[in-house]
């Protein structure tokens, strides 16, 4: 997904010299194609995310379209106030790119698990929050935020290294994307955990359940139209995110549901408000914390039987 991002951004930046990458000393082997192709549009700001983010805001106010780049929580939580005051409040064209949303850096430990970033970034006014679920969404999201005037957050996962969607000619910030139409149950997925949702769907099919499925590459602004429609036509909505349940994607969906007079019930899949203490890779941790395809399937069946 990150290579798709870099490749896409190189294409865009060749056409627009104001597009720049500022990295927090990360991207070894990833950003090289960018700095080789466009050395005048690349800055390594060192291991100093607060300065990176405010400097990006300063550059943006001078007409640049700046992509800050780092991994895990470093480009977000480490410099949250810089994003709030300097980027978003000034409506600065800063695009914050995180590689490693969720458990991507599983074995590296808790410091490297980005599990609250969606909630935190979603809490900021005037910040678009995007979590693409596959390579097609990653490319489309990169193009969309490059065009967007203002501050955006792009959360890239690992996994999702395939193409769910054939193509997305109508991709828009704020629009959910239908993957399949089923009945009774609808699954809403954001980010790279979609690969687990695919497995869940296969397991559900084996027991005769055909859910409606949407991906939500944009968490903010959330697609209220799709949520309202599905909540009126289905019995249960299942939200899936590789992220803490407090304040994340499931919460965003819940906020829309809570304001409806009646609606489908909600099952939120995600991290159950705890820090990971286990050691293991992304697939292992997803399973241990109830976010693997099989665990999502089991939770859905459990709910259906209630």
């Amino acid at each position, binding site marked *: 997904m990150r290579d798709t991002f870099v490749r896409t951004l190189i294409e865009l930046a060749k056409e627009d010299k104001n597009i720049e990458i500022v990295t927090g000393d990360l991207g070894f082997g990833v950003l090289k194609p960018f700095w080789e192709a466009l050395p*005048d549009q690349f*800055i390594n*700001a*060192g291991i*100093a995310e*607060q*300065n990176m*983010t*405010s*400097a*990006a*805001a*300063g*550059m*943006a*106010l*001078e*007409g*640049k379209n700046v992509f800050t780049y780092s991994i895990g929580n470093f480009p977000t939580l480490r410099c949250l*106030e*810089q994003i709030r*005051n*300097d980027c978003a*409040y*000034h409506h600065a064209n800063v695009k914050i790119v995180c590689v490693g949303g969720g458990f991507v850096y599983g074995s590296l430990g808790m410091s490297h698990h980005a599990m609250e970033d969606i909630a935190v970034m979603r809490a900021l006014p005037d910040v678009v929050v995007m979590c693409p679920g596959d390579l097609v969404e990653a490319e489309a999201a990169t193009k969309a935020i490059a065009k967007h005037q203002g501050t955006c957050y792009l959360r890239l996962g690992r996994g999702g290294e395939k193409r769910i969607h054939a193509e997305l000619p109508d991709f828009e910030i704020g629009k959910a994307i239908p993957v399949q139409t089923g009945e009774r149950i609808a699954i809403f997925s954001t980010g790279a955990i979609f690969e687990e949702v695919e497995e869940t769907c296969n397991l559900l099919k084996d027991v005769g359940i055909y859910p409606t499925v949407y991906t939500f590459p944009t968490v903010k602004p959330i697609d209220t139209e799709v949520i309202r429609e599905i909540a009126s036509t289905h019995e249960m909505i299942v939200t899936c995110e590789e992220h803490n349940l407090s304040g994340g994607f499931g919460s965003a969906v819940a906020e829309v549901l809570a304001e409806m007079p009646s609606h489908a019930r909600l099952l939120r899949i995600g991290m159950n408000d705890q820090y990971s203490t286990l050691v293991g890779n992304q697939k292992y941790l997803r399973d241990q914390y109830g976010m693997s395809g099989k665990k999502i399937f089991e939770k859905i069946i459990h709910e259906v039987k209630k």
Partner: protein
Amino acid sequence: MKSQNLAWLIRRHGIEMTHLSGGSHIGAIMSVADIIAVLYADILHFDPAEPKADNRDRFILSKGHAGASIYAALAESGFFATEELKTHYQNGSRLSGHVSHHVPGVDFSTGSLGHGLSAAAGMALAAKQDKKQHKVYVVLGDGECNEGSVWEAALFSAHFELDNLICIVDHNHMQSLDTCDNTLSTFPLAGIWRGFGWNTVEVDGNDHEQLRNALTAPAVPGKPTVIVAHTTKGKGVSFMENDILWHYRFPHDGWEYDLAVTEMHRVKPADVVDPYTPDGIADPIMPDENADIYRDHTTSATYHPTWFGKEKAE
């Protein structure tokens, strides 16, 4: 306007604005007034009719709590009516306590310390990339230099050779609760900046001639410039000077306001009109023996931990 006249007016507006609003930080407004006055009177290129002109110099007050000084300078420079200064802090006003970019002439909002130098560095870097000739000025507090992000920005600016960036540190040697030395004693400050690779100049920051000389000296190619400007917190009103009380206290009705204005009138330049009390105060109330004046309000005056204390070593 002459910088001396502007400095006097910034201070007079500052007294009035904090008096009317009950606003904090008059000590910082007074200490930075000469720096701001010299910048707006003699150094910065700007056009009040076109506040966003691309060839203007950029200016950020990173110690945003001294925002009243900028509002006063902008109003006196023609960006908006001086009458509006009275709305500072008030419901519905544009003039928030900390600097807001929603006010014409303000390039960047601040208020949380440790942001302004980074933003200024980003602006300076973009100007270099685009081969633009304007300069970027930023004023920091010395207490602000406690923030780690200042030093991230210091490294960044030196590394990218931002010689179009000029940072002025309002070094009044005091911060919120105490002197800088009694808070995080990281001094001498100029030596640290020098160590970070900056062209470092030290001046008396309440002396306009010294400030002007430093600000008009040619840049050192490849180096950002920092002017460590030694100032007096509360400068211009004897009982505010070097008293930490006036970091937060505002001049109340009675002797505090009357004496401040009276002292200011003793040094008022002849060709300046005081917009609030044109003839001074005829019969000023004076402090009585119970007045909280000329006392030591620093934390260290009353804070004596058993496990740590510099006085023990004395």
